[in-house]
């Protein structure tokens, strides 16, 4: 037999080999022949392409939905879910960290804003008082009286025509939360009338309080300030802080 004749024998079997239809002995012989014969390998490649395409010729048929669920149940994530072990992937970790950082940023900026807002409100009220004080000082009928006590000094502005008085004091000690400063209007008989409570402002070196009197200020001869329980008292009970005569 010539080489071509030998080759023909193998070549005849290539189509069946591509279908896996050769009997074991024949298949083994073709397989070893393919090792040494390039033209049979080319032939096989063409028949393989054919048989692979044949596989796609079956009209598709949708499998039951339960199959997909079963398959999903065999995937690692489903297996993991059934065991308590939880492994963070790098991405999850990065994501988690990012979220925590963003949350922290939000919280801290929120707190900062809260503090700023509070400060703003305080500043605004002080500014208002300050502006009111300047306006009162500029008003021709306003009396300016000195406040002088131990370590405390300030000014009392009294506008009798409009029944407004303003206390501006420096170095007023801060009280604890159970106590408050209370102002009293003093009449010629020495009787005290409540004129409101106020606190010293911790962020500012001076304290201001405005008194709007319902009665005519000309009926009074002075203003006093005492320390009272935080809700204030109907009559003075605590230590006097200062007293100013009109």
């Amino acid at each position, binding site marked *: 037999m010539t080489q071509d004749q030998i080759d023909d024998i193998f070549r*005849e079997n290539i*189509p*069946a080999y*591509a*279908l*896996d*239809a*050769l*009997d*074991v002995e*024949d298949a083994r012989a073709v397989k070893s022949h393919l090792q040494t014969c390039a033209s049979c390998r080319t032939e096989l490649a*063409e*028949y393989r392409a*054919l*048989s*692979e*395409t*044949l*596989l*796609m*010729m*079956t*009209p*598709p*048929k*949708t*499998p*039951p939905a339960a*199959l*997909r669920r*079963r*398959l*999903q149940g*065999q*995937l*690692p*994530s489903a297996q993991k879910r059934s065991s308590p072990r939880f492994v963070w992937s790098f*991405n999850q970790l*990065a*994501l988690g960290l*990012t*979220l925590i950082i*963003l949350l922290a*940023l*939000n919280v801290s*900026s*929120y707190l900062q*804003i809260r503090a700023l807002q509070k400060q703003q409100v305080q500043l605004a009220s002080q500014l208002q008082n300050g502006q009111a004080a300047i306006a009162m000082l500029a008003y021709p009928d306003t009396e300016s009286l000195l406040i002088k006590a131990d370590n405390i000094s300030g000014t009392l502005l009294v506008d009798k025509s409009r029944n407004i008085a303003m206390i501006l004091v420096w170095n007023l000690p801060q009280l604890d939360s159970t106590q408050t400063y209370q102002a009293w209007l003093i009449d010629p008989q020495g009787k005290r009338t409540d004129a409101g409570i106020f606190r010293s402002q911790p962020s500012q070196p001076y304290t201001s309080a405005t008194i709007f009197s319902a009665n005519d200020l000309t009926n009074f001869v002075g203003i006093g300030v005492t320390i009272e329980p935080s809700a204030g008292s109907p009559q003075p009970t605590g230590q006097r802080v200062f007293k100013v005569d009109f």
Partner: protein
Amino acid sequence: MDLGEFITCHLTIRQQIHFWIWKTEPLNKLVCIMMQIRYNGAVLNLDDTQLASQVAQGDERAFLTLYDRYASHVYALTMRIFRDANLAEEATQDTFLKLWSRARLFRAERGSLLPWLLTIARRTALDRLRLEGRRPTLSTADDPEELWQTIPDASTLPDEARWRSMHLAVQSLSPEHRQLLELAYYQGLTHTEIAETLNWPLGTVKTRLRAAMEQLRREWGEL
């Protein structure tokens, strides 16, 4: 809250999770909006080769996307081989589990994914058939001839031109040739087994199967 005044930055993590950070005025507060783009949507746009390489990296959603794409082909093929729904389901499941564990072995330069997957499905099913010692019965209610005649839905196949010409080539074969292909390729019978099943001389089986394949190749090549 006043959103959208300032888009400070937009972060994207692995093309799946997007952050937009707004700085609101006048509160100067950072607002972070996180959005996860539906991963499935992103995966659906990938082609088979990209999905297979994602599966090789353990991406389950890519895997399920491939399942949704090709389960009906694998199931159809295994049904054709077994003619039994339970066995076909098992073989379909085994095939996809093999895809899960062997996706890294898929080489796109050697061909598309579906034929590769179907080759795995065929081997898986035939191994099982052999294990059970089952032999095909020729008098079955499910007529294999019918399977050859039905035109698969073109939109579900990647190389439409390829299989369309193959479909015509198959139609050019005689019913006898188609039966031989059915037994050899879909029932996994060897020359000798076919000869026993059909009660034909072995030489006749060899000659006719070869003739069937040669004609198929000729017709397919011409189309």
